[in-house]
């Protein structure tokens, strides 16, 4: 089927209802292998939307003395921000670019495409709503392309553009374009991606980027890249209900107590009943306070101050949520991880986990590893090396609060911090809660031990315990309190 050269799931520009247009900034990520023309494409986007100013272009020409074939500056220099990279001639990190059309503004996470930089792509993709995958029309779809699509999908991106670049170098051949878009759509389908738009592009000549390429490609009737971006949707935290991770408690005076945070899902209005997690206490919303006015509703994305109708204990790291559809609270969760640092992720090691405003101790037990080449998960219980993507079990000392990442990209996301270096060592996505912990539904006999902390830490680190960590409940306390609790059991 080649009647429509795009077969796009995204509606062509002409059919869009302008009234419904989302004007929030669209975040996108661009991925491609070296020399596919990513710098040229981004440069072209910035240039044709007039985001590059004359003095910046002049600086480029002065620095390089280089111009490309069309007398435009060397865009790669505009983009490679850091001296060290400029010397090496490669981009090594995520950079953010900004441009706007009269309809919308865009934030581009510009990430390098080399295999070893999975971590950069994961970083850029974590906030992106759409991925532009770039291929060289001559080289076609590479293993690299599949990898990029896989990582982007894992990070929760659901809208894709396949930019088939250097179409000028294959004589604007429609058959080649159709072949590559068909091939990519198969990959996309296997990843569960439904929204793919393929566009034949010449980044160098500026065809189908901002301006159309009708003169060279009369056969292409689909949208330009910018038209697709203008119409793409920004995913507001798509969740089952209201979520407010509490960042801080505001107490400017005795009479006021407000809970400050950014709504991470759903909506809230005065009178709503909410639950405070993990404590489980309930209250009603009295007021939504903002600088501008007292509001009668707040939605996902809004930074608000919430006032409740009664005195309850709420602290930073707690979550205020709707009663009907609560997030999961538990001591053990399954997740997917991207390892970001040379040290990798070690099984059994205790890390800090930060999700929203909540930071807590966690141990990680890998269970499988993604083979990016085939897209298959293989059993794996050793360390996760840098750039690996793995499935893991997370075990907490204290209750953790999450939604599945699929349901909410904010309350389902977390980072791991290495307590030895304080560096961010992994990004993670929650799959779901693991079976009931603590033996609540279990008839078997239980034993409570009270141990010195150093001994407990040794036992916790042992393989035997970590294998069944989900069945173990741990609290830390002082000797007096421990004696008291044991005394209660005896009495």
């Amino acid at each position, binding site marked *: 089927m080649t009647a429509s050269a795009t077969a796009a799931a995204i509606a062509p520009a002409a059919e869009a209802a302008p009234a419904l247009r989302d004007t929030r*900034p669209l975040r996108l990520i661009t991925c491609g292998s070296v020399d596919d023309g990513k710098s040229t494409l981004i440069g072209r986007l910035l240039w044709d939307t007039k985001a590059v100013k004359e003095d910046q272009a002049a600086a480029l020409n002065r620095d390089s003395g280089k111009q490309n074939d069309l007398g435009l500056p060397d865009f790669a220099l505009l983009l490679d921000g850091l*001296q060290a990279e400029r010397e090496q001639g490669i981009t090594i990190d995520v950079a953010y670019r900004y441009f706007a059309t009269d309809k919308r503004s865009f934030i581009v996470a510009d990430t390098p495409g080399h295999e070893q930089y999975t971590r950069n792509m994961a970083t850029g993709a974590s906030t992106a709503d759409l991925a532009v995958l770039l291929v060289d029309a001559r080289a076609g779809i590479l293993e690299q392309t599949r990898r990029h699509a896989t990582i982007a999908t894992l990070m929760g991106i659901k809208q894709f553009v396949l930019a088939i670049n250097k179409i000028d170098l294959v004589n604007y051949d429609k058959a080649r374009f159709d072949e590559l878009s068909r091939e990519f759509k198969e990959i996309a389908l296997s990843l569960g991606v439904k929204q793919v738009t393929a566009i034949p592009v010449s980044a160098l000549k500026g065809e189908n980027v901002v301006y159309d390429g009708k003169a060279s490609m009369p056969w292409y009737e689909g949208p330009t890249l910018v038209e697709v971006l203008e119409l793409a949707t920004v995913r507001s935290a798509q969740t089952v209900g209201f979520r407010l991770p509490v960042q801080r408690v505001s107490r400017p005076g005795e009479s006021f107590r*407000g809970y400050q945070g950014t709504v991470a899902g759903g909506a809230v209005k005065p009178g709503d009943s909410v639950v405070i997690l993990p404590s489980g206490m309930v209250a009603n919303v009295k007021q939504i*306070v903002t600088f501008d006015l007292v509001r009668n509703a707040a939605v996902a994305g809004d930074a608000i101050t919430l006032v409740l109708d009664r005195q309850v204990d709420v602290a930073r790291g707690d979550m205020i949520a709707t009663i009907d559809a609560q997030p999961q609270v538990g001591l053990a969760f399954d997740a997917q991880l991207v390892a970001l640092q040379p040290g990798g992720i070690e099984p059994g090691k205790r890390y800090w986990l930060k999700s929203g405003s909540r930071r807590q101790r966690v141990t990680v037990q890998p269970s499988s590893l993604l083979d990016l080449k085939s897209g298959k998960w293989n059993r794996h219980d050793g360390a996760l090396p840098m750039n690996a993507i793995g499935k893991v079990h997370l075990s907490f000392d204290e209750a953790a609060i999450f939604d599945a990442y699929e349901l909410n990209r*904010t309350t389902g996301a977390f*980072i791991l911090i290495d307590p030895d270096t304080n560096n961010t060592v992994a990004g993670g996505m929650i799959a779901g809660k693991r079976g009931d912990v603590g033996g609540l539904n279990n008839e078997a006999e239980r034993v409570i031990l009270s141990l010195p902390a150093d001994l407990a830490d040794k036992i916790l680190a042992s393989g035997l315990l970590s294998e069944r960590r989900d069945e173990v409940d741990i609290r830390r306390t002082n000797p007096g309190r421990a004696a008291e609790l044991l005394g209660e059991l005896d009495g």
Partner: protein
Amino acid sequence: MHISEFDAHTQDKQAKPPLDPHLKALENEAIHIFREVAAEFERPVMLYSIGKDSSVLLHLARKAFYPGRIPFPLLHIDTGWKFPEMIAFRDEMAKRFDLDLVVHTNPRGAKENISPFTHGSALHTDIMKTEALRQALDAGQYDAAFGGARRDEEASRAKERIYSFRTPDHKWDPRNQRPELWNVYNGMIRRGESVRAFPLSNWTEVDIWRYIQAENIPLPPLYYAAKRKFVERDGMLMWAEDKRFEALPGEQVQEDYIRFRTLGCWPLTGAIRSHATTLDEVIAELEIATVSERQGRAIDKDQAGSMEKKKREGYF
């Protein structure tokens, strides 16, 4: 000086329609960052440089902590070469918004009379800004400092994180930054280390102006065109009303309508010819401008990568 002079030069100060979704999203993100840093760090401080970005930053900080006060001090590094209107504006804002304002001038530089004219822009910036900032941050034992930098300003900023980690001697290592995913920020540091936090990272110059307009944010009058005295020096329009100003041989002091796109030390801040006396006019000029705002800054032109070099050394 009369207060109203500082207020946004807009036609209608009464009606304030809701923010458009684009600016609202940027505002929400900035407020989130402010609250996160205030909650995670022991001694945050906000760098306040009196320009438009700082003015937006201040406004966002007030919003973030409302109905409370801003729970940290504002720090102004005064090189001694700021426009007098900036200082008057600063003091007025501190009074009006009940701010905890800390002003620091490098005592060594002041004693040695460091001047951008006699010592050159590089040395002046180095001693009166970079070194002064380090002194003030050390003295205050601040573990987090908010700045108004935006990623669209300059190439080396494009890779700057929102939480930008600094070593105990305030060094920035661009090759070794912490990855930053989603809006989950890693604020874990050891004693002596610090973080620079940039709530305006994702704003562009146009966003800043639109927001100032939408929110009626007060600005120093220097942003609006007025008849001012200046000379043309090295392709830059230099303000010539300070008593330390000396015309070079052959230079002629002119008087015409000019305004400033960025504010800093007056010998290093180029003006543009303009008749824009209202925000609408300033924005209209901006939207057809073909030159970036940093063009007026002498500091960037010294050499390629000069900003990156300064940042590595601890410049904001």
